[in-house]
Structures are given as structure tokens and as C-alpha cells.
């Protein structure tokens, strides 16, 4: 039950950034950001400062995920406080620079919201990625976006797992939001994926503009998939994979995986079954970039998060 007093008053979100090319071969975000750097008309909103930004220009130039190390894992406290010495990996230097521009992470000077644009080879459709189950601003925003995109589905992935959570580029902001749209091969631009991402951003910026103008958003609930576990491929003693994602699991992101369901198919034709006790909802199934991170897919469980009503705080 919500009462009149259960309205959270939140600070206005004045400074927003849109990052493309955090991974240099994920083409939708790179293309959108470059387009908006040339002509920002489409992303302009009243009272908002919006900065489109290419996170990893050297990787974009080479159309590769990263140069020395994954930028989207590089925003750790250790890296951000590392002294400026020669020989630092390119992405660590870049993380420090971006932390100066858009942060510092955790401080009141940090950007209010950052949208980080990604693509995946997995059949995840349009996915919004959250890092906190208690960020009311973000919860209300994804609720708004999901409603606006309907009947097109937007899934919400929540990664609050203490071990599996990672220090993302967007984590510099007070309100970090990951946009992940697939399936799209690395280095390829698919029109439908591009347009989906463009539309999601349009709705996100509309939400922020409305919020800043004083609109009150009533209490809401958001269906999310909460990250549980990383599942690796079966491997041999040399670390080479010995099986592939099973054809029954391939492309079935967000669909229930039950005990006894096929999970992997070995190169010599044997099926490996899922042995977990509970039904899980796999995602990031067969993402190209995760072979080296020892991940065939991630398991999630479904959860409903509740968010209070929110309104811009009066000065």
C-alpha cells in the first residue's frame, strides 16, 4: 500500500552521457554515437546536457573488443586510483580519463545517468541491465521504457551478484544503465537491432526530461531476471572447449531451463544435461566474447522489484 508520504524525492538528472564503443566491435552503439556527435538534434532534450561519447576509440578503429584489456571490467577502485605511470594498459588509462570526465565514481560530481550501448551475439532481444535493485530512478525509468516499447519486449537483467558483478564503464555515474541488444554478430550492423537501440534511448531520454520537468511517477513493479551463476563450457585439460551449446538451448535466452533439459552437445555427439535443482532462466547464451571469460551462458531467476513513486526534489 502506498500513501501520500511514500514518494521519493530525487535529485534532478541534469547531466547524461551516452557511451558507444565500450567494445569496439559492437556496432549499433558506435554508429549511433558517431551519428549524434555529428548531429545531436535527435537526442536534445529541454534542460538536459547530453554527451554522446566513444569510450574506446582505439578499439573502435580496429573493430576489436579491446586493445589490452576489457574496458567494461576496468573501472575497479584499484585501476581508478592507479598512479599515472608508463606501461599502464590502454584501457586502464582510458578508465582513469573517463572517471575524471564523467565521475569521479561515487562522488556528487559524477554524471547523473550514463547509458552504455552494447550488442551481443546472444538472442537476448532488447535488454536493459541494472546494477542495483534499490535505484528507484533506474527502476522507474526501465518501467517507463518497457511500457513505451510494448508490444516489443524489453527484458531487464539485474546483476547485483557479489562475485559476478563487475566494474562497468557506466558505473562511474550515479544511475548506470546498460543497453544490450542482440542477436548481432560482432563487426556487423543490423538495421532492426540499430533501430531498436535508437528507440530505447529515445524513450529513456523522454523519461528523464519528464522527470526533470516535475512529473510524478506512481509506484510500480518491474519484472527482472537476477543473475545467479555463470556456466562454462565443458573443457579438456588444455582448456579447449569440448562441447557446444545444445541446439535446444541455443537462442532460448530468457526461457526456462529445467533439470534434465539438454544444455551442451559434445563434438562427438553426446548430450550434457542441466543438473541444477531449480528452474533457471539462461541469458547471454553463446556470446562470442565470453568464450575467453569461461562463460557459455548465465543463469538467472525471476524476481519482481517494487519501486516507490518518485518526483524531482524541490530546491
Amino acid at each position, binding site marked *: 500500500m502506498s500513501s501520500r508520504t511514500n514518494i521519493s524525492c530525487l535529485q534532478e538528472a541534469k547531466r547524461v552521457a551516452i557511451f558507444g564503443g565500450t567494445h569496439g566491435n559492437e556496432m549499433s552503439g558506435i554508429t549511433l554515437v558517431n551519428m549524434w556527435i555529428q548531429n545531436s538534434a535527435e537526442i536534445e532534450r529541454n534542460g538536459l546536457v547530453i554527451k554522446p561519447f566513444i569510450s574506446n576509440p582505439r578499439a573502435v578503429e580496429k*573493430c576489436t573488443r579491446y586493445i589490452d584489456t576489457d574496458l567494461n571490467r576496468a573501472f575497479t577502485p584499484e585501476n581508478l586510483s592507479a598512479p599515472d605511470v608508463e606501461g599502464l594498459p590502454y584501457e586502464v588509462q582510458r578508465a582513469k580519463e573517463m572517471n575524471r570526465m564523467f565521475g569521479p565514481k561515487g562522488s556528487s560530481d559524477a554524471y547523473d545517468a550514463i547509458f552504455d550501448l552494447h550488442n551481443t*551475439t546472444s538472442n537476448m532481444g532488447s535488454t536493459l541491465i541494472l546494477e542495483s535493485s534499490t535505484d528507484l530512478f533506474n527502476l522507474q525509468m526501465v518501467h517507463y521504457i518497457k511500457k513505451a516499447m510494448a508490444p516489443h519486449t524489453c527484458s531487464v537483467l539485474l546483476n547485483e551478484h557479489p562475485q559476478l558483478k563487475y566494474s562497468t564503464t557506466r558505473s562511474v555515474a550515479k544511475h548506470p544503465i546498460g543497453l544490450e541488444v542482440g542477436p548481432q*554478430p*560482432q563487426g*556487423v550492423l543490423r538495421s532492426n537491432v540499430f533501430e531498436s537501440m535508437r528507440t530505447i534511448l529515445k524513450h529513456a531520454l523522454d523519461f528523464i526530461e519528464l522527470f526533470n520537468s516535475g512529473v510524478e511517477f506512481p509506484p510500480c513493479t518491474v519484472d527482472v531476471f537476477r543473475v545467479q551463476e555463470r556456466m562454462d563450457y565443458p573443457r579438456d585439460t588444455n582448456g579447449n*572447449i569440448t562441447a*557446444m*551449446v545444445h541446439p535446444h538451448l*541455443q537462442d532460448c535466452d530468457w526461457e526456462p531451463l529445467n533439470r534434465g533439459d539438454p544444455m551442451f552437445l559434445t563434438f562427438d555427439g553426446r548430450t550434457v544435461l542441466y543438473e541444477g535443482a531449480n528452474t533457471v532462466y539462461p541469458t547471454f547464451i553463446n*556470446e562470442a566474447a565470453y568464450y575467453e571469460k569461461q562463460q557459455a551462458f548465465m543463469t538467472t531467476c525471476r524476481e519482481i522489484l517494487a519501486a516507490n513513486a518518485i518526483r524531482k526534489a524541490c530546491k
Partner: protein
Amino acid sequence: MKAVAMPTVSRVAVCGGTHGNELAGIYLVREMLKKRADGTEPVSVVTVMSNSRAAQLCVRYVETDLNRCFTRAALSAPVSETSPYEMIRSQELNALLGPKASAQAVDLLCDLHNTTANTGLCLITYSDHDWICLHICKHLKHMQFPYMLDICYAKAYLCPTSILFLSAMEIGPQPHGVVRSAIFSAMQEGVQLMMDWICQFNSGMLFEGGWVDVYTMVKNIDYPRDSETHVITAAVHPDLQDRDFCLLHPGDPMFLCFSGETLRYRGKEALYPFFINEGAYYEKGVALSLARKRRVQIPSWFVNVDEPK
């Protein structure tokens, strides 16, 4: 058409990893390399990981595209330690698989590739007189996998100078750096059927001639680009995306500009698009290729063990 007698196909090469991020061929070659030959095989198969350095890094190539290093000029150019890795490698492969006089010479080479385009299973040959390739194509129609089978008459790449017959087996769609089990299984079955054909041929079976649809490349189409920055300004139109080998008529949508405008195919002749939106071709300035289809008659085909090679 008169039946044609050909010599035995004694030695076959199967190559994977010519591009180090086209994973179905790489994993298939690794599996094949695990199986030790015991000398009873009816056909001698040499299995090769063409670009192992690129495969290790899971990249298309390390310095230059290996699949473009097999021109006569590239194969005869002097190489040193400082030459691009793939230039050195192409000469090594040519020496391993090519020279007629050597005991290692192969009669047929199958180069395994994947594409991000929705091509299904394609055999690529450089000559429409490559009767073996066309016969194998006809034979592959027995496959249980619902892949369309077409042959493109494209520029010869992995083409050591003295191999009698060669083809590339291209299967898509599969993202680079990913192995999809259905694609792997299709490639495995395709290679197996090719081997079955060769064994049956070598044992004296007569293969009836007939007709095969062949797609012959006419031209490549690039993305629309900004005249100053050369950056692409459109994506392949959703109506064309994934429609490899579906006839494209004059006036059909081809590109959807970021501005919202649709660009249409302006050619006068309806042609067959293929390699639509292949990831590796952005840097080569190719959004799609266009082909003409024609029916090619192939003669009946049988082995004559006395036929000189």
C-alpha cells in the same frame, strides 16, 4: 553429354581456420586431427589448420587475409622473417599441398568457412567446369539439414597452383568467434558426404550427369557512405537482410539510411544477392554481392584408374 572418365581421387585436403574466427571449421579440423589414421582409410585425408596463429587469437587474420595470399604473385614473391605472417604461411601451405611432383600433392581441397550472412551451405568454386565440385554439390542435396546448396563462381582464393579440384564450403549464418552446434553439425555432415562421394567414385560408381544451378558473381555493392568521412550512412534494409539467394528485383529496397530514407536497387536486371552483410567485408567495401543464376549441365562421371593425373 558424353560421360567423363577421371583419375582416382587419392588424396584430399580439408582445411579449417583459413580465417581464425570462423569456428565451425576450426573445431571440425581439431576433431578430425584427433582421430589417428590407421592406414585402412579408402581415401588419404590431410587435415590442416591453415592459420593457427589467427585461430589462437580468434581473429580473421594476424597481418593480412590469408585467403588473399594465394595469387601467383604472392606465392612466388620472396619472403623473409619480416614478411607478413600470412604471406609466409601461404607459401608453406602451397608447398605442403600443391606441387604436382611431390608425394604429398592433393587431388581435392575443401576449405571450410563460416559467414555472418544467411547463405545456408554453399560450395564455392572458381570454374564452372569444376565437375567434381558440381557433382559433390548434387550429392550434398541428400543432406538432412535444410540448407540451400549453391555454387558461386568466385575468384579463386586458397588455390595452390596444381590442385586438380578445389572448393570452399561456406556455411552461415554464424557470428565470427561463435560455434553454433547446428552449423557445426551441418559442416560435419557436408564433409562426410563429400568423403562418401569420393569413396564411391574411387570404387567405380558411375555418377549420373544432370543439371546444377550455379550462381555466378556479377558485382559487389558497397554501403552508401558519407562523401567526406567515408563512414557508412545506412544499414542493409530489413527487407533484404537474411535474404541471400532470393531474387532482388529493380526497385526492391536495399538499404535503410540512418536518416530514414530507403535506397532501392537501381540495376536493370534482377539478380541474386549473397553474402548480405558479411562482417568481414565492411573493410573491403562490400555490403552484398550480386549473382546471375544459370543451369549448368554436368556429364556422367566415373573413375578410370588408368587415367593419368
